[in-house]
C-alpha cells in the first residue's frame, strides 16, 4: 500500500520503473526464445534494448540527480538500436530472397 500511496501522491518510487523495465525485458527474452519469425525476434530484441534504456534513465535520475551521463547513454543506445535494426532488416530481406521465408528454424544450413 505504501507504493500505491506514493504513486497517488505523485511520487513514483524507483521500484515501479524497475518493475516495468523488468517485465519488458523478460517479455523480450520470452519473445526471442519462442517466436519463429525473425521480425518478431527483432522486435523482441528492441524490447530488451528499451528495457535497458529505461534502466539507464531511471538509475541516473534516482541515484545521481544532476548528472546527465545516463540520459546521453540512453540516447546513444537508441541511435545504435536504429542502425542495428536497419542492418537486421537488410539481412532479413536477403534471407527472404534466398529462402522465401523468414522462419528462423529454417536457417541451419551454415552448421555443416
Amino acid at each position, binding site marked *: 500500500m505504501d507504493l500505491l500511496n506514493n504513486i497517488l501522491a505523485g511520487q513514483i518510487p524507483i521500484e515501479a520503473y524497475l518493475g516495468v523495465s523488468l517485465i519488458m525485458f523478460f517479455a523480450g527474452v520470452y519473445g526471442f*526464445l519462442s517466436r519463429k519469425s525473425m521480425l518478431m525476434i527483432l522486435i523482441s530484441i528492441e524490447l530488451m534494448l528499451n528495457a535497458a534504456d529505461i534502466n539507464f534513465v531511471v538509475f541516473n535520475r534516482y541515484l545521481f540527480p544532476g548528472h546527465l551521463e545516463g540520459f546521453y547513454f540512453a540516447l546513444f543506445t537508441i541511435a545504435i538500436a536504429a542502425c542495428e535494426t536497419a542492418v537486421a532488416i537488410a539481412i532479413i530481406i536477403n534471407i527472404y530472397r534466398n529462402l522465401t521465408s523468414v522462419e528462423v528454424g529454417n536457417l*541451419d544450413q*551454415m552448421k555443416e
Partner: protein
Amino acid sequence: MQYTLLILVLPLLSFIVLGLVDSKWKPKVAGTIGTVVLGIITALSYFAAWEYFSMHRIAGVYEKIIPFNIEWLRFTDYLYINLGILLDPISVMMLVVITTVSFMVNIYSLGYMVNEKGFERYYAFLSLFTFSMLGLVVATNIFQMYIFWELVGVSSYLLIGFYYTKPSAVAAAKKAFIVTRFADLGFLIGILVLSFYTKTFDFGILTSGDTSVFASTVGASFMGISVMSWALGLIFIGGAGKSAMFPLQIWLPDAMEGPTPVSALIHAATMVVAGVFLVARLFPLYIVYSPEVLHGIAYVGAFTSLFAAIIACVQTDIKRVLAFSTISQIGFMMVGLGVSGNGGHEGVGYMASMFHLFTHAMFKALLFLGAGSVIHAVHSNEMSHMGGLRKYMPITNITFLIACLAIAGIPPFSGFFSKDEILSACYEFSPYMGATMTFIAGLTAFYMFRLYFNIFWGKEHKHQHTPHESPFAMALPLVFLAAVTVFAGWIPFGHFVTSDRANYDIHLDFSVATISVLIAVCSITLAIIMYRKESKVPKKLATTFSGLHKAATNRFYIDEVYIFITKKIIFNNISLPLAWFDRHVIDATMNGFAGTTQWVSLKIKGFQSGQVQQYAYVFLLGTLIITVLVLFI
C-alpha cells in the same frame, strides 16, 4: 681460369630453361639449345685443358688450381662445406671426357630420339646429368663430391626411367637408384669417419701429404682394423656401387632399358667411372694409409672383370653384352689403380687406369652409339634379329669394327696402349694378376667379335623392311668418336696425368704387348671361326658346357640371390614383423585416438544444431546458473 665456372653453370641453366618450358617450344628448338650449350662447354673444357696443361710445372709437377671456392654451409669451426672448382690433371681430363661424350650424345640424340615423346624432357635431363657429373669431377671437397654424386644418381634414375610408361624401364630405374643409393650409404659413413678424425673435407688438405692431419687416426682402430682402412674401405663401397663392382653390379645390365644414347653417356663413359675417379682422387690416401684396401680394390676389380667377361660371352641382347663389357673394363681400371704404387715407374698403374678411362670412354660410347644405330635400323636388341647388316650400314659397320679392335687391344688403336699399360702394371704387381688380366683381355676380344660378327656378318635375318644407314646427326658422332679411338692411343698420356702429377714417359713393354696382342688375335680368330658364318660350333659348345652356359646366361644367378636375400630373408624376418608392429601397435594407437575423438564428437554433435534460438536458450540458462551461483554461494 675463372671461366671454368661457366662449364658448370651453363648446363644447369640449360636444364632449368628446358625443364621449365617443357613442351611449349618445338622439340627441335629444345634439342638445339641443349646441343649448342654442350658445344660451348665442350669448347670451354678443351680450352681449359689446353691452358692448364700448357702451364709451366712447378717443381716438376702440375699445380692444383682452385679458381673458384665459396663457403656454402658452416656448422662449426671444423664442420663446413665449400663449393668450388678444383683443377688438377685428372679433373681436367674428366672435363674433356665428359663434355666430349656428352656433346656427341647430344648430337646423336637429335637423330635418334627425334620422334620420341618428351624430347624436351630428355634434353633437360641430359643437361642435368652433364651438370652433376661435371660438378662431381671438379669438386674441391669430398662433401661437394657426395652432393653431386647423388645428383648424378638422380639424373641417371630419371634417364633410365625415361620411358616411364614401360614397367621394365621403371623397375630398372628403381633398381639402379636403390642399389647405388645403398652403396652410397657406405660412402657417406666413410666420409663421416674420415672427416671425424681429420676434421676436414677438403681434398687439398687430405691429399697434401701432410701427416699431421691424420695424427688422430694413429692407433685408432675398430674391430681390429684401423679407422683409416674402415673409412677408405667404406668410401670404396660407394665407388663400387656407382662403378658396378661385384656384388653391386646388378643394376647396370638392367639400366640398358633407358634410351641407347643415355646408355652411351651414363653407363659407358661417365657415371660408371665415377667410382674409379673417386679412388683416383683419394689415391694418395689409399696408397699411404691403407695399401691393403687398395689391394682389395685390385682383387675386387679383377674378379668383377672376369665375372662380367664370362657373362658377356653368352648374352644375346647386344646392349647387355656392352653393359657387361663395360663392367669388365671398369674392373680393368680398378685393377690398374689397385696395383699401382705412387710416383714414377711405380705409379704406372694409376696413369694406365686413367688412360684406360679416357680411351674406354671414347670407344665404349662409340660402341653404344653404334649399337643404337643398329637398333634404330632393325628395331630390336636381339642378336638373332640382326646379321648381315654390313651391306646396309657401312658407316656403322666400320666405326663399330674400329671400336671392337680398340677394346680388343689391337694396335694401333687406343685400347691397345691403355690396356697394355694396365697389364704391365699387373705383371709387376704379381704374375698371377697379370696372367688373369691377360686372359680377361682375350675374353674381351672374343665376346666383342662375337657381337660384331653376329650383328654385321653371319646369317641374314629376314627384315620386315630393309635396314638403312642412320641419318647424318647419328653418323657424325660415330665418325668423330671413331677418329678419336684411332688416334687417342698416341697421346703421350703420361705427360699429362700421373699419380704424382710429374712427367712420365710411357714406354711399351714389348713382351707384355706381344703376348696380349697374340691372345687377342687368337680370340678374334676363334670368334671369326665360330660366328662369321653360320656354324654349329657355338651350339655344340653350349651343350657340352651346358651348366656353365646356363649359369652365365642367367648371370650366375646373382639377381636371384639378391631377390632371395631381400624377399625371403629381409622381408620375411625383418620387414614383416616391423610392418605388423607398425600396423597393430603404432597405427592402432593413432587410430584409437582418432576413433575416440570421433566418438565423442558424434555424441556432442547435437549441440551444434544451427538453431539460433536453441543457442540463445542455452546461453540464458547458463547466465541464470552463473547468476544464481554468484548471488547465493
